[in-house]
Every structure is written in structure tokens, then in C-alpha cells.
């Protein structure tokens, strides 16, 4: 390009030093052309299959398994170095205790006791959250009610309510369900409501254009449109519920007679079976991982990811 200015066609103007008076430089006039589009040739195929390594790297489950394996290895190394099975049993010892617990101590039954209570509380809370947020989006009073209640109760730790719950409902499942509902309801309602308010005006208008109103409007338009936020609320609620339940069982050993996972941990600590305590903790973690990576993952893949609402 630059050598154009030195071309012999315009010798007087641009050669040598720039002229004293600024000359308007015109862009060069170049010939036009048309071409037929050639085959891609040297670039090769338009699409190329990924290599095995690239494909493996794309499997999220595999990547996460690698992380888990690394953590387990680190654990094993640290515990081996500490060499104090009473305080910090190794990974292999914990796995052995877990296996033992599953085979002879009825660990699965205890886990199920906990899970069953958890699911009941969770279901009640989800239903209540849907109801509360539906009222909140359709009426202004409902909106004020929801924001007041969430700001009042969301910061209140569920476990702090347990003594009162036990006073009201006795030492049993009902007290546990009460605190679980409290643990799940507020974060879920908060997230759901935030999701509803972020639904685009155009989409709302499109829905009303169809003649949708009231509960049908909430169910067929708002809930799916707000689903990414609702799903986050469900996950947070699940985690809160799990913590609350284990803590409640640990501290109060509530569901009398047939204890849950928390009770299992508590009892074994009393008897200084530390490897079993670790086995109980691992069970809690495993169930959490399973729910997060299988149940919620499945829901996510079949809804918000499929719809292109999240990456």
C-alpha cells in the first residue's frame, strides 16, 4: 500500500517531502473482479471428528471424578503422614468402615430414615413456596407479604427453631419436618420470586396475548420462564435441608427409636469409632454429590440447558 504514494504516476505530488499545502489524498482506484467460490481445499474438511482425548475432556462426569480421585489421594497421603487413626483415619480405613456399616450396622436404613424425612419436608416447602410466590406475583399485598416474611425468616437459622418445634410438636418427625420447611421455604421463595420478576416484559405480554391469566399464567408461562432461578432455589434449599436435618439429628437425635444418619455419627463418636464417624460423614457427602450431580443435573439437562437458557 505505502509504495503507491511513490508510484511514478504521481511524481510531483507525493515524492520526497510532503508539500507545504495539505493535498487531499484520494484512495487508489483498483480494478473490480468477480470469482467463483473454490472448494475449501487446503483447509481440509469443514468438520473434523474430535480426538478421543478431546472427547473425554468434554465429559463433565469424568472431569469431576478425576477431582474426587485427587481429593481421595490427598486425604490418604495426609492421613498416612499423620498416622493417628483415632483422630484422622485414612481414606481406605474410612471406606472399610463404610463397607462394614453398610453390611452390618444398617447404614443404608439409617440413611433412608433421614432421606425420607428430608423428602417430606422438602415437598411441603416446595408446595408452600409455589403458593406464596404465585400470590406474590399476582397481587401487590402478596408481594409485600413475601418480601417481609423472607427478610424476617431467611436469616433465622432453622436449627434455632428446633427447641420450640419440639415443645410444640413433640420429639418426632413432625418437629423435624417443621424445621426443614423453614430451612427450605425462604431461600426457595426468594429465588423463585427473583426469577419471576426477571421474566422479560415481551414474554409476559406474549403470554397475556394468548389470553393466559391467573394460575394458568403462572404455571404455563412464569414458572418455565423463571426456571433457571427456581432450579438454583431448589438446589440451595436442598443443601439447607440436608444440613439442618443432620444437625438436628446430631444435636437432639430426634426421630427417636430409629435414628438417622446424624444419630449414627453421634453414637459412633460417643463410642470413639472415629472411622465410622468418617464413614457417616462420607455417606452424607455421597448422597449430596449424588443428588447434585445426578438428580439436579438430569433436571438441568432436560430443561434449562435444552432450552438454551443457561450455558
Amino acid at each position, binding site marked *: 500500500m505505502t509504495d503507491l504514494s511513490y508510484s511514478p504516476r504521481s511524481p510531483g505530488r507525493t515524492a520526497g517531502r510532503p508539500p507545504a499545502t495539505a493535498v487531499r489524498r484520494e484512495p487508489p482506484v483498483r480494478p473490480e473482479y468477480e470469482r467463483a467460490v473454490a472448494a475449501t481445499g487446503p483447509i481440509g474438511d469443514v468438520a473434523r471428528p474430535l480426538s478421543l482425548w478431546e472427547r473425554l475432556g468434554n465429559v463433565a462426569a469424568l472431569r469431576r471424578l478425576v477431582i474426587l480421585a485427587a481429593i481421595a489421594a490427598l486425604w490418604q497421603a495426609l492421613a498416612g503422614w499423620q498416622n493417628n487413626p483415632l483422630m484422622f483415619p485414612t481414606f481406605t480405613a474410612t471406606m472399610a468402615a463404610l463397607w462394614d456399616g453398610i453390611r452390618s450396622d444398617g447404614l443404608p436404613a439409617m440413611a433412608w430414615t433421614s432421606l425420607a424425612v428430608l423428602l417430606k419436608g422438602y415437598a411441603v416447602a416446595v408446595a408452600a413456596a409455589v403458593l406464596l410466590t404465585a400470590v406474590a406475583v399476582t397481587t401487590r399485598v402478596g408481594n409485600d407479604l413475601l418480601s417481609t416474611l423472607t427478610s424476617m425468616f431467611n436469616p433465622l437459622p432453622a436449627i434455632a427453631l428446633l427447641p420450640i418445634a419440639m415443645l410444640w410438636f413433640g420429639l418426632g418427625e413432625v418437629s423435624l419436618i417443621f424445621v426443614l420447611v423453614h430451612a427450605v421455604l425462604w431461600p426457595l421463595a426468594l429465588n423463585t420470586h427473583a426469577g419471576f420478576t426477571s421474566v422479560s416484559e415481551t*414474554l409476559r405480554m406474549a403470554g397475556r396475548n394468548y389470553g393466559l391469566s391467573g394460575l394458568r399464567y403462572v404455571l404455563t408461562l412464569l414458572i*418455565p420462564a423463571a426456571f433457571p432461578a427456581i432450579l438454583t432455589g431448589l438446589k440451595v434449599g436442598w443443601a439447607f435441608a440436608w444440613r439442618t436435618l443432620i444437625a438436628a439429628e446430631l444435636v437432639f437425635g430426634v426421630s427417636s427409636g430409629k435414628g438417622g444418619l446424624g444419630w449414627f455419627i453421634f453414637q459412633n463418636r460417643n463410642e470413639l469409632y472415629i472411622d465410622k464417624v468418617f464413614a457417616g460423614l462420607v455417606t452424607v457427602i455421597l448422597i449430596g454429590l449424588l443428588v447434585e450431580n445426578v438428580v439436579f443435573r438430569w433436571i438441568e439437562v432436560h430443561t434449562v440447558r435444552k432450552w438454551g437458557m443457561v450455558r
Partner: protein
Amino acid sequence: MNALTFPQGIDTAGASERPLLDVSGVTLQYKTRRHLVTATYRVDFQVFQAERYILLGPSGCGKSSLLKAVGGFLQPVEGAIRLNGRKVTRPGPDRMMVFQEFDQLPPWKTVKQNVMFPLLASGKAGRREAEEKALDCIARVNLTKFADVHPHMLSGGMKQRVAIARAMAMEPDILLMDEPFAALDALTRRKMQEELLALWDDLRFTVLFVTHSIEEALVVGSRILVLSPHPGQVKAELNCAVHDHGSVGGAEFQALANRIHTMLFAEDVEGAVTDGVSDAAAGGTR
């Protein structure tokens, strides 16, 4: 929906000459945090069967507000909007909207489900019939291959086509289009305009179309309502059925375009001058 009953407004010449949509003396206002803004002031116009009626004006002339009012999303403070003689009070599936934004399609439904959704939601058709209609309309906008794809996989033009198919399938009394092609690139826009005209040739629906482009108005419309801004008032009503893409750049087309241009921007020159002086002065010129 029930076009055969005429509870009121039989005062016009005869049933065939009765306007489909009658907007009379409509003043629209909306509240912002600080102000009460008047979007349109006593706007009158009538739309007849099979017209391609354009609302044209610069931004701030209340054309989109007018369309929303016809859609039933906005209540007039003064005047009335009648469709088939019945007063418009709320949104309904007899007036289908095509919005400018691409997010008007629920992302959790495939193209086919999106087109079926209003048919099912309004109870206009059963599942089987809705599916048939949907596939037919999707074929009309050339998206048959994409019937089972979710909207996030489509380009902007394709999404607008789905929105048009969705509106078509409902066979509404009037189709409301709010700058439907404004967010598209120029080439796609032209293609979409051609397709819309071809569809109209086939089906002869009535459409109320909002745009700020004079060229688009002349090409797409059969009749144009020119609105002046702040607040929107009727400036003129013109015929332009003779113009299409073929006549763009012709002498007659240019003449009409220039006429509209002068109409819209003659006072804007004043506005531009006074804007620099003070707000009060600008208010005085309105």
C-alpha cells in the same frame, strides 16, 4: 372472535363498509417515576378488512403505545378502541402481536410447540388440530425443517418468522406488528418484508404495522397513518398500495417519501434549534 354480533356501532354505511378496527379520540398516558407522559393525543383512525395499515412516525410519537392499546395492554384515558364493534378492554387472542424483540418466543418450547401454544392456551383448537395448523403455518414461513428445534438455535430472522407463523395460526381478526423487522440486518429485513407481502397475497389478513422507516412503510403498507411526536397526533393518512420493492427509487416513490419526510421533519428543524436554547422554549414549540 364472534364477528357476527354487532352490539353497537351500526351507524356506518353498511356491514361491508364497517371498519374492522375503529380508534376514536384515543389519548394514551403512562407514568414514569417523575412524570405523567402523554403518548398520544386524541388520535382517530380506522382500519378496514385486509388493509396493511401502517403507523409511521419518529420515536416519541406514541405509535408503539397505540399498538399496545389496540392489543389491550394499555387503557386509553380518553376515547375508545373498538374491534368489530366491541370495545377493547384487555389482551386477547383475537389480536395477535408480533413484537420486535427476539425473546418473545418461550424458549422452553420447540418451534412447533410455540406455534401451537396460543391455539391450545386460548382453547381455539384441540391438540391434533393445533398441530396440523401449526405445521401448515410453519411450512408457509419456510421453517418445516426446524419444527422440532428450540428457539435458541434459530437466527433472528427465523425467530421473527416463527412469531409470524404463531400469529397466523391463530387467524386473528387483526395482526399487530410492532417494528417486527427493526432488529434484523438489512438483507434479512428485505427478505422478511417480501415474505410478509407474499403471505398477505395468499391469505389477505388485516395487519396493523408499526415502523419508523418511511421506506418500509411505503413498501409494506397499503395505507399510512403519519403521526407527529410529543404527543402523538395524526398528521396525515396516505395511500401507498401501489408501491412495493420494485418501485423503490422510482420518481413517484421518491416524491411520496420526500413528502412524508418533510411532514415528519419540517418542525424538527425548529425543534433542533430551540432544543439548544432551553427546555421551556422547546415546550413552547409543541
